[in-house]
């Protein structure tokens, strides 16, 4: 680490990969020195080579260089070589961004050189504004993992955390551990042979948990309040009596499971109409009761012998009428097969029919399906239209899809395979006045400004929106696991809980070092907010996609670093620009915008500012370069953490400074949004709609600011978009604002 105080900047210009042949690197060096005011300026034939890297290291060590600007390849390339942990570094993208995206030959020489010179100017301007992130480790070091819910998922999460050496606390609202799994006679097999129902293993798991030295259990308890941040959560655990105990924890796993769909909502299928029509949970109860007495399962209506059982799959599920659950609960096919086996194993003479539309037994479940057939369970592809129950028997009316007829079967017992309804608490995205009549009870009771519970994705499920990142929640350090996240069976729930335990542990470790969590994992920068100047407009607190910002008693924004994901949405939102990161701020970008050499309006050299999402649009442009997809030399590209971090001041500065247009390339938004910070690109779109008025006031055409959705795969499309936009700007003509800056 260099001595505090004195800043010494250095610029390094690479001549490798054809840069030396294509460009006048001397001139670039001159620019860095004269305009960039770099104290040290060096050129090198092969900068990423050991000798080049050593040269830089020596300067840092011996010349007390504190800030490094590298004009070479893209910031995405050669990261192992250009890896100087102890100084701020800016990288001017001369290879992918200039020589690879510009045509060779004299004709293009001048504008290509302009481009390279500007990127050097921008790099120098940026690095001077950068500080080395110090990181903000949370003071209090709570490393305990809180698990809400003591069912299969919760028990597993707690045990796995404890086995990794961490302390765990379980808060269970029931009087006993085990959850739904404890209500089961047996479970479907989860390893070979996939032939018979197996013991649930709940008792064993409960024993392990209760006897574990590192696990503490609170029964009949709920969370009255949850406040703080990863590494520093404080939860108030309330018992029935109302007494509360405060617990300090580092991370939270919400494993609150599900409630079975109310069969009374399925009267047409006999649900709630007749004792001989039960749901899967109801059947487990009957089987357990019978087993306790050592007798065969009895018919609820009269205790008579059960000779035939019909299982109706997807009861109140996969429903597109809007009346019932739209999704499939995943486990029900295997569960019905398992339950049919209860009967077949006890007495093969009992008829068991599973009525299904699509039998869903993925993976090794296929073996279990076969085993069911071997045991004589009949599988009929059909859909029940109604169940008429009278006396002691039920008549199931159904459409037989194979035999193509409407028909019926008699049964002593009808089992409705209803779905899982997640226990996810309050849907914070619904405004207070639109909340359902029967207000759901909050699970976490978060004191977060943005609401009491985890945001829900869909249908009450607190699942991640990201396929590659199933544990993404919008509340750092709080992870959902098990059926509350997504419908699932026990086998998947235990895997899920184990994964969630890892994420919780990781959150604790991150907080301890002041490191960001996914997707900017490891980032030590965090928002620095001098409150003087803050107008308490609250935009940052409202717009933070992760609910990281609360309000203090004086109604100033209260930042919780370990909840922050470093996207900069708050920075983009702040009208008075008091929010900044050490290495990414209104200034680091603003100064780049101001740094370029702006040609006059007669030069026929328009300048277009491109603000590109660093995760998708920027890599797309890099790869365009790698494939030599040419785009206009009039653009200057600045990568941003997220379009959500784009502050309108950059736009107005650019336009005032004579830029002819501003192009924003961000991720897809809407239902299938791609933005890794959830709302960033959407917010940007919203904010820019406001910019139009500003443009009009400045007497500028609204086309001068445009935003586009660009995917990382738009390797050919992105350059095309740029060229089309540049053409449009040339049509409109040069900005009248030039020369006034």
């Amino acid at each position, binding site marked *: 680490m260099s001595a505090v105080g004195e800043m010494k900047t250095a610029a390094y210009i690479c001549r490798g*990969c*054809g840069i030396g042949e294509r460009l006048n690197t001397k001139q670039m060096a001159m620019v860095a020195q004269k305009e960039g005011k770099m104290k040290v300026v060096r050129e090198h034939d*092969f900068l990423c*080579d050991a000798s080049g890297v050593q040269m830089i290291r020596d300067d840092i060590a011996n010349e007390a260089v504190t800030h490094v600007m590298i004009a070479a*390849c893209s910031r995405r390339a*050669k*990261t*192992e070589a250009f*890896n100087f942990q102890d100084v701020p570094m800016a990288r001017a993208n001369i290879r992918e961004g200039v020589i690879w995206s510009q045509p060779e030959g004299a004709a293009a020489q001048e504008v290509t050189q302009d481009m390279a010179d500007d990127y050097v100017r921008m790099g120098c301007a940026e690095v001077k504004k950068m500080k080395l992130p110090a990181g903000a480790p949370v003071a209090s070091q709570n490393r305990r993992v809180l698990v809400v819910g003591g069912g299969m998922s919760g028990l597993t999460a707690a045990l*796995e955390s404890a086995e990794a*050496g961490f302390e765990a606390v379980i808060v269970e609202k029931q009087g006993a551990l085990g959850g739904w799994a404890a209500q089961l006679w047996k479970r479907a097999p989860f*390893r*070979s042979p996939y032939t018979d129902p197996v013991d649930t293993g709940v008792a064993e798991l409960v024993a392990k948990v209760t006897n574990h030295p590192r696990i503490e259990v609170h029964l009949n308890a709920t969370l009255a309040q949850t406040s703080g941040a990863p590494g520093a959560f404080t939860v108030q655990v309330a018992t029935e009596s109302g007494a509360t105990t405060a617990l300090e924890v580092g991370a939270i796993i919400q494993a609150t499971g599900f409630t079975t769909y109310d069969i009374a909502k399925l009267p047409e299928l006999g649900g709630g109409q007749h004792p001989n029509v039960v749901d899967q949970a109801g059947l487990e109860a009957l089987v357990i009761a019978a087993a306790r007495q050592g007798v065969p399962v009895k018919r609820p209506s009269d205790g008579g012998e059960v000779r035939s059982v019909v299982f109706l799959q997807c009861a109140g599920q996969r429903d597109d009428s809007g009346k019932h659950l739209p*999704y499939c609960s995943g486990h029900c096919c295997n569960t019905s097969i398992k339950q049919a086996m209860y009967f077949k194993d006890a007495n093969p003479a009992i008829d068991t029919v599973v009525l299904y539309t*699509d*039998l*869903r*037994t*993925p*993976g*090794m*479940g*296929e*073996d279990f399906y076969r085993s069911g057939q071997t045991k004589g369970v009949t599988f009929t*592809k059909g859909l029940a239209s109604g169940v008429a129950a009278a006396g002691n028997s039920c008549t199931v009316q159904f459409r037989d*899809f*194979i035999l*193509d007829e409407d028909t019926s079967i008699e049964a002593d017992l009808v089992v409705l395979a209803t779905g899982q309804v997640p226990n996810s608490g309050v849907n914070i995205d619904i405004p207070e006045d639109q909340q359902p009549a029967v207000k759901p009870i909050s699970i976490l009771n978060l004191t977060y400004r943005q609401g009491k519970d985890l945001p829900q994705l869909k249908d009450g*499920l607190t*699942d991640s929106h*990201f*396929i*590659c*990142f*199933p*544990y993404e929640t919008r509340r750092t350090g709080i992870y959902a696991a098990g059926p509350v996240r*997504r*419908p*699932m069976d026990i086998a998947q729930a235990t*895997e899920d809980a*184990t*994964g969630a335990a*890892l*994420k919780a*542990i*990781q959150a604790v*470790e991150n907080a301890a070092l002041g490191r960001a969590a*996914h*997707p900017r*994992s*490891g980032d030590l920068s965090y928002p620095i907010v001098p409150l003087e100047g803050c107008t308490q407009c609250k935009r940052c607190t409202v717009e933070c996609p992760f609910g990281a910002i609360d309000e203090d008693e004086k109604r100033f924004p209260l930042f919780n670093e370990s909840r922050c994901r470093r996207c900069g949405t708050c920075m983009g939102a702040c009208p008075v620009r008091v929010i900044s990161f050490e290495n990414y701020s209104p200034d680091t970008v603003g100064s780049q915008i101001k740094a370029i050499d702006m040609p006059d309006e007669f030069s026929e050299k328009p300048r277009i500012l491109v603000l590109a999402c660093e*995760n*998708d649009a920027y*890599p797309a442009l890099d790869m365009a370069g*790698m494939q030599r997809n040419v785009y206009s030399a009039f653009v200057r590209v600045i990568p941003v953490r997220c379009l959500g971090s784009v502050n309108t001041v950059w736009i107005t500065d650019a336009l005032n400074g004579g830029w002819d247009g501003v192009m924003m390339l961000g991720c897809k938004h809407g239902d*299938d949004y*791609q933005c890794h910070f959830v709302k960033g690109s959407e917010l940007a779109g919203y904010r820019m709609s406001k910019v139009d008025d500003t443009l009009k006031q400045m007497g500028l055409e609204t086309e001068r600011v445009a935003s586009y959705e660009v*995917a*990382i*795969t738009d390797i050919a499309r992105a350059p095309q978009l740029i060229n089309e936009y540049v053409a449009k700007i040339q049509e409109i003509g040069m900005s009248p604002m030039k020369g006034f800056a």
Partner: protein
Amino acid sequence: MTAPIPTSQTILVVGGGISGLTVALEAAECGKQVILVEKLPTLGGRTALLYRYFPKLCHPVCGLEINLRRLKGNRNVRVLTMAEVVSITGTRGDYTATLRISPRHVTAQCTACGDCAKAVSAEIPNPYNYGLNQMKAAYLPHAMAYPQRYVVDPSIVGTPDGEKARAACKVGAIDLDMKEEIIELKVGAVAWATGWQPYDAAKIQPYGYDRFANVVTSVEFERMCDPHGPTGGKILRPFDGEPATNIAFIQCAGSRDENHLRHCSRICCMASLKQTQYVREAYGEGGKSTIYYIDIRAIDRFEDFYRKVLQDPTVRFVKSKVARIAQDDKTGGLILHGVDTEGYHRYEAPHDLVVLAVGMEPSVKGADIPAEVIADSSGFLEGSSGGGIFGAGCASGALDVNRSVQQATATALRAIQVVNKAAAAEVAR
């Protein structure tokens, strides 16, 4: 990047696909030392070869970019590419892994400038497009390849082409004398994330993959639909290169079948549903997709996507396992013979292109690993009896990407538990 010294507290991750990457990164971001071993020259695995994911139809390389950024910024992970685990000996907390590292013939000095590829003329079948097209024998696997370093194919070493490549490299990064290396590592736990391979479609004789040009596999079709794939995103009939607009998807091609794979491969239904939307993307109302299926297994939330496709007028569903395919030798057109079992309707349906939704076979074979690892009847790694070797992702079962990552995250914790205990033991000593 300072390379961690392998110890009993190091986690070895075998396989650099999305599951292996996940185990490695999740563990490393918990502060653990990880060695990530990949047999190919690049990380990313099979997901990097997918055009889009179901159900969001987003692009897999987007997640790959994030994971690679996590990797570049993390000093706890050491990556070894073109490296295969030959054997593992020892016990939980104290394993010795023997690795074979094949020569890349390109050193770390490579700047990926591409001059070598320009210089050589020899071409080889492109494995990243399932051999549907050719690529230069000096190549960067794909635009997202990491390490971003070229490979010189052994086939041109010792040929004039090899020399041309060497001469073309301004930074002298090409070393044609590079030899295969065998190295040994001491590690505490192992995550086996070697993924899956598509079932050999030629074995499903009635569908004539080995006889009819216009019968392709789902993984090949995926490449075909990718704008960066062998056909530039055009859906063409291999027989004559004409556009294929009437496309059949045959489910359970190899799966749920005692003659082939006994298990259900889980992903195929969703993959075909997704691919019908590629057809729509390419032809709008002009395209026609027909899915021949036994059961549509759109598990849990995926039901939404199934519903969406059901409402698409360009997509038809036929509940039938196609009996056989016949080819018109003149046109290359295909006739599917079978019976729609919903009410017993025979069909002789003509199609331009048939996509076999091929099943998932675990690629865990090859290496010599301790007996403590238990595999199920299909060869997926079920677990480890008291050991420290764990299956991750598709090596552990037929999983989609989302579940693979979920499972891999769990596996990371299991590995951490092992090395933490090893650490505790060492402290005690």
